[in-house]
């Protein structure tokens, strides 16, 4: 029988990159929320942050072998829940607009979406990682 001989990847470097990418995106999103504008520097920040976070996230969940199945489960579940939370947040913004009419600037809205998506993914990823598993967390 073939014995499994694999090596773990550079987890810390990947996690570090993910946090750096997230920090760049969060700073850019906060800028857009507060100043309601989108300029060249912010565009570079958003693109750079998104690029770093996407590359490191796929590396984290195991697009590059060898992979850790627990990290893949944790990462995938946190990304899924982050997507749902962002969708719910947008629905909330839409419905709250009926009762308290407020005009959102496109840059502000973009900043809010990025902020909610990135922060919820980081929080959920940290939570699931510390818990150990994603099973028996939410019973749908």
């Amino acid at each position, binding site marked *: 029988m073939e014995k499994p001989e694999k090596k773990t990847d550079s987890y810390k470097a990947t996690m570090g990159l993910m946090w750096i990418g997230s920090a760049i995106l969060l700073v850019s999103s906060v800028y857009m929320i507060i100043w309601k504008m989108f300029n060249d520097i912010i565009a570079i920040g958003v693109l750079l942050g998104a690029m770093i976070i996407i590359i490191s996230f796929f590396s984290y969940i195991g697009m590059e072998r060898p992979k850790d199945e627990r990290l893949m489960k944790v990462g995938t579940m946190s990304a899924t829940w982050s997507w749902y939370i962002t969708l719910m947040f947008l629905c909330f913004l839409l419905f709250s607009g009926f009762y308290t009419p407020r005009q959102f600037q496109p840059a502000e809205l973009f900043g809010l979406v990025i902020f909610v998506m990135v922060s919820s993914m980081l929080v959920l990823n940290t939570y699931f990682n510390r818990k150990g*598993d994603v099973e028996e967390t939410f019973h749908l």
Partner: protein
Amino acid sequence: MKTRMKEYRARHNLTQAQLAEKVGVRRETIVFLEKGKYNPSLRLAHDISVVLGVKIDDVFIFEDESDKKEDEKD
């Protein structure tokens, strides 16, 4: 799920890090497995049992859902 990984690992004089490297996961995953907080895939359970030289059901003891509910009632 209960596990006897720690016991078998000690018999083979393996550290958590060594076992983790052999099966291609991080040490934290072995820690959560030994605590019974993580349910491994069949592939990982198989890899661990191969390294420890025992059958899968000797290492991992899966509890029946009905037994679990009865335990919770008691």
